[in-house]
Structures are given as C-alpha cells and as structure tokens.
C-alpha cells in the first residue's frame, strides 16, 4: 500500500515540475526580458516544495508509526492489563498488534479477562492503525498540495529560481556531510547507553581490573554453577598477546618489503609486487580465519607435537610432554595469520612514509660515498622514524579490532597468559560469543558485549588519533 502512496507522490512531483516549467515558458514568451533562471529550475522549485515536506512526513510515518501506535495504546490500557508487569505488558501490546495485523502472535495464552482485553485492544489497535495511516497519507497529500500552491504563483521571469534550488541543493549536501558526524554520535551514544546499563550491574573497577571472566548468569535461583564474573583483564591480555605476535610477523616483513620497494626495486618489480600486495590486502578476513582454523592450526599443532615427541625421554622431557598437549587454537596461530593479513597494511603505509623523505637527503648521503643500506639505516629510517611509528600504531589498532581471524582461530578460554602456545580469547571474540548465543537482550551478559565494545572503541580511537597526529606532524616536516 505504502508504495502506491510514494509512487503517487512521485507522479505529483513530476506533474508540478511540468506545470512550473510550462508557466515560466509561457511567461517568457509574453515578457520582454530573459528570465533569471532556466525553465528547468523553475519547474524544480515547484516540484521540491511539493515533494519534500510530504516526503519527510511519510518517512516519519513509516519509521515511527508503529511506535506512535504502541504509545497511544499503552496510554489507555484495560485494568486487567495494567496489573501485569512491564515486560508482560509490552508482550501483550505486541500480541494485540499482531492479531490486528493478522500476523502470528506469541505462544502466550491469554485466558478469560485477559483474552477479552486482547480482542478489545486488538480492535483498538486496528482503528488507530487505520486512522494513522489514512490520516497520515491525507496530511501528506495536503502538504504536497499546499507546497505546490505556495510555489507555483511565485514563478515569474524575475524570480531567482536557480538560487532557491541551489539553496536546497546546498542543504542536501550539508545533511549528507552531517551523516558522518551522526554516525560517530550514533556509535558513541549507543555504546555508552548500553554500557551504562552494564556498568550499573557490574562495577567498572571490577570490569577493568578483575582477573576472572566467566559471563554466566544464574538463570534460576537454585542453579548450580558460577554467577557472572566480569573481570576483563584476561581478555585484554589475550588481545595484547595476539596483537604482539601479529606485529612481530607484520612489522619486519612489512617494513623490509617497503624498504626494498622504495629503495631497491626497479619499475618492473614494483609493477608486479604492488598488485600482489594489494591482493593480499583485499582477501576478506573470514578467509584468513578459515585458513587459520583448517590449515595453520593443525599444521602448527602437528609440528609442535612432533617436536614434543622427539623431546620425550630426553633432558627436556617435561617440555616435550607439554608440547604434546598444545591445541589447534593457540594464540600463535591467530597471531601469525593476523600478521600475514597486516603485512600489506604495514608495507603500503611504510612505503608512503619512506617516499616522503626528500631525495636531497639521499643525494647527500650517496655523495658522501655511503652504500644504499647505510643510507637507509643511518639517514632515511631515522628521518622516517616518527612516520613509521605512526604506521605501526595504526597497524596495532587494526590488530586489536580484528574479529574474524581470532574468532575462528583463537579459543574461548579467558586466560591471562603471555605464552603463545596457550589458548586465549580476545575482546572481539567475546563480543561475538556474547551476542550470538541465545539470550534476551537485557541480561548483563549481553550488555557486557557493549561494555567490551565501548572499551575497544576507546582504545582504537586513542591509538588512531595519536597515530594520525604523529604521521601528520611528520608529513608537515617535509612539505
């Protein structure tokens, strides 16, 4: 149904465009002067005034109509329903609306008075729905008509239609730019809002310093088992460990490949290698995760087990025994694969940084009789150091925020350890685990995910801001 209304509005806007255009063309034929704006602008002016207010109303209706309906219903509930708890009331309301719309309601059974109340409320819901809808559409039509009637008489040769239309265009551009700000606002607000609810159940200090992470909530009072411990330190340590392993792989390989590409490689080599690195960068992280889980994990475990089997019975027997027990899901696997993923990132950033070092420094060093490696080690790298540091920080931020590789390759055991052969879990894995299970939205378990999300956001934001600032200062030095 709603599509017909939108289509109607669209046709109306076309009609008003045509009318506006016709009017100005006619006026031009009679009047001696040239009109200020082209005919199309006049038509567009009328069409915009006819369409935009009505469109805003219709979108609001689609977005908030249901909410408005629920609010109206909730304002005047039958007494039997008012006796119910808040959760039950909202379930009742959504069931009533479902019945009114002919959809399947929940399996909740309503007996006697409640059953009757359900029917009554459903009927009310139907009425309100129809009123809102038809009334809304009528109002939209009215707005469209008013808009057209407002705009059409203004069409005249000396009317600055183009300026008005361009004003609307500017407004549109500003709104589009504001979307970026709105996104950040949205992220911050949603994270903070949910985290506040979380931190009201779990004190922030316990979250930030607690050493035990087992987010179980006793469902029934008599359930045996842990109740929630939300100390996130093991998660932080796990994230840190995986990030460290990843940087140990990506840092040297990425930096050295950037050095080779910018200082040694000829044009042919660069033309081949750079696309290959781009491909490595374009592979989705879920593919890396699959690779880690099904190839790297078993391979590493097999290797360690084999080494362990060689050591058993000898002087390192204890260590050998330990090596036989390592699992597929060790931090080392996730770290190494994440490092592979980060290589092109580090390499391309470092390449940019190295290219920003002015050629005059290189010339000065070569003219002194230095070899290329001496120039790189003693002149270029020290000069590029702040930029490289910034690049590494950005890579660290990427590593900390990475989800799929660790979800598929690391484990779920929250252990605070720096042993790369252990199974650890990270902040991002826990966010995924907490939100992809079966629990209702409000339990502290789910809200913990938002607490973790807020922490992650703050840390990556801090890293990014610092890194970008360093890189910017570095660039300004050489421009």
């Amino acid at each position, binding site marked *: 149904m709603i599509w017909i209304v939108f289509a109607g509005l669209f046709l109306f806007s076309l009609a008003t465009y045509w009318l506006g255009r016709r009017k100005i063309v006619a006026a031009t034929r009679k009047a001696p002067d040239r009109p200020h704006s082209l005919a199309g602008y006049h038509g567009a002016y009328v069409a915009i005034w006819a369409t935009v207010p009505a469109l805003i109303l219709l979108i609001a209706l689609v977005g908030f109509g249901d909410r408005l309906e629920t609010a109206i219903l909730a304002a005047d509930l039958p007494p039997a329903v008012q006796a119910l708890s808040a959760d039950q009331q909202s379930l009742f309301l959504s069931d009533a609306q479902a019945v009114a719309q002919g959809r399947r309601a929940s399996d909740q059974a309503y007996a006697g008075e409640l059953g009757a109340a359900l029917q009554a409320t459903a009927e009310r819901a139907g009425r309100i729905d129809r009123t809102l809808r038809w009334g809304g559409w009528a109002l939209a039509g009215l707005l469209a008509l008013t808009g057209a009637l407002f705009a059409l008489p203004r069409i005249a040769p000396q009317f600055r239609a183009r300026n008005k239309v361009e004003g609307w265009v500017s407004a549109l551009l500003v709104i589009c730019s504001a979307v970026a700000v709105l996104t950040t606002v949205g992220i911050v607000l949603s994270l903070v809002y949910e985290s506040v609810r979380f931190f009201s159940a779990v004190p922030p200090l316990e979250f930030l310093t607690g050493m035990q992470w087992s987010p179980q909530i006793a469902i029934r009072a008599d359930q045996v088992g842990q109740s929630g411990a939300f100390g996130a330190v093991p998660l932080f340590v796990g994230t840190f460990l995986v990030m460290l392993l990843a940087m140990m792989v990506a840092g040297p390989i990425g930096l050295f490949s950037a050095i080779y590409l910018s200082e040694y490689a000829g044009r042919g080599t660069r033309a081949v290698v750079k696309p290959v690195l781009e491909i490595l960068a374009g592979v989705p992280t879920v593919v890396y995760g699959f690779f880690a889980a099904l190839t790297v994990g078993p391979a590493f475990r097999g290797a360690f087990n084999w080494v362990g089997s060689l050591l058993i019975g000898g002087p390192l027997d204890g260590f050998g025994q330990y090596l036989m027990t390592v699992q597929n899901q060790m931090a080392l696997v996730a770290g190494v694969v994440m490092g592979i993923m980060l290589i092109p990132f580090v390499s391309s950033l470092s390449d940019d940084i190295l290219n920003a070092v002015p050629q005059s420094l290189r010339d000065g060093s070569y*003219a*002194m009789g230095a070899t290329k490696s001496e120039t790189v080690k003693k002149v270029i790298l020290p000069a590029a150091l702040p930029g490289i540091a910034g690049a590494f920080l950005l890579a660290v931020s990427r590593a900390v925020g990475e989800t799929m590789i660790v979800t598929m390759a690391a484990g779920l055991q929250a252990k605070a350890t720096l042993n790369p052969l252990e199974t650890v879990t990270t902040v991002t894995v826990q966010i995924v685990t907490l939100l992809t299970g079966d629990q209702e939205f409000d339990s502290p378990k789910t809200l913990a995910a938002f607490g973790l999300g807020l922490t992650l956001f703050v840390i990556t934001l801090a890293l990014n801001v610092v890194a970008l600032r360093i890189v910017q200062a570095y660039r300004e030095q050489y421009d």
Partner: protein
Amino acid sequence: MLPKIFRQRDDEGGAAGLVSSTATLGGGFINGAAHHPPKVIARGVDVFYGDKQALFDVSLEVPDKAVTAFIGPSGCGKSTFLRCINRMNDTIPYARVTGRIEMDGEDVNARSVDPVVLRARVGMVFQKPNPFPKSIFENVAYGPRIHGLAGSKSDLEGVVEQSLRRAGLWEEVKDRLHQPGTGLSGGQQQRLVIARAISVSPEVILMDEPCSALDPIATARIEELIDELRQQFCIVIVTHSMAQAARVSQKTAFFHLGTLVETGPTEEMFQRPKDPRTQDYITGRFG
C-alpha cells in the same frame, strides 16, 4: 663594455689594478700557464637520459688546487656534467654516461672503480643545504664513521673539530655540537654541509650552485671559504652568476645546450671571449 666585476684591492683602479687583482686571485695562472697538473680530465663525454641526449661530446680539463667554474644558461648541462665526476648520475635509473673521465689517470667509470671509494675522494655540496636531521656533530662525523677513518672517539672528535674549523663554523657551533643541524641558518647549514664534505679529506669538491639559496652576506662568506679551500682541494663550482664565477674561479667553462662552447682562464673568458655565443651570454644577450 664589461661591468666592473672584479674585487678591487687597495683601491687600485684601471688595468694595472686588474692585472694585480688577477695576479692575487689567480694564484697560478699568470700568463695562462697552469700551476698544478689537471686533476680531472674528461674526453668525449656524452650523457643520455633515456632517449634524450643531455651532453654532447664534452672534453675538459680541471686543474688541481684551483677553482673551476661552469657557467651557462639554465638547462645547459653544467650540473649534469658535474654529477658525472662523482658518478651521481648512477643513482638515476635511466641515465647513461659514455666517454672517458679520468681522475689521476684512472677512468672513474671503469668497472674496477667502486663508486663508494670514488665518492669518498670527491665531495659534493648541493644547491639547497641538505644537512641530515641529526646533530651537528653527527652530520660531520657521518663520513669518517661509515668509511672507518677515525680509530677512536677522540680521533673522531678531532676530525669533526678540524672540519668545522676549516669550514669556518667551529666558533659558532662549538657549544652546541649536539643540537640538530637543521636548526642552523641557511648559510650556516651550507657551511655545515661543506664541513661534512671535507671531513673525509676528499681530493675534489664539487659544488652545484652552492649559494643560490643564500642571502648575499652568507654568499660572501662562502665565497671567501672557497677561496681558502682551493689551496688544498680541487674545486669545481657550477654557478648561474657570472659575477660569482669571475670573483671566485681561476678557470671557467661555458656550457650551452649540452655542449662545451669555450673554456679557458677566467680573465680571458670574460675579457676576450673567443666564441660569439660566449660573448653574447656574458654581455647578457640571453640566459
């Protein structure tokens, strides 16, 4: 008529003054005879950048313990030829040098000659001062360090001090040797670069328009420094200022459109140029 471009000492005017000036400045060019044997001899040098030829059959001799100036309009090839002497054109991927350039009888482009060693013997100063973003001390110590010329820390400090003294910078920086070299003024930076160049005791110093980025006072100081340094080094200076060439050099070479048009003792080049193109350039008809 030629402008008065020679420094007058003791306010001697006229031809007598000119002759005595050249006698003082020229050092060893009285009657056009070279005092010292040629340090660098070039024969039939061509330079190609890709398909484009930049230098055509240049043959030239650069005398030792003297200043030779390369002059000519922009793009005439003087910097290109300068960079051939210490093989800096090697760092440009598509540059090709043919011909023979000898230093002390040895072809610098021969396979047996290591550019690293060559560049320790031939120093270079660039148009825009390019001190490394290190301390003043580290800038000057760079050369001795990488070539292994200083046996101990005190040796190194001695070399640094001596180089800075010879470049006329020691008194100004001796109390702040560990501050960054980039914090000095333009003229000081260029003298720092010269100190860096002489720290490895080169035999030849190449200067590519060393004063074009400096103010006149700094320029004058550098020119005085060049005049003193020529007693110990063979100096080649590329300059777009004929006045500077006349002030500072004993021999001048005029380049135009990639060819060496004329070369000879500076005084002769400016007073009695043989080639009409040289005459036109010197009198300012073009360039």
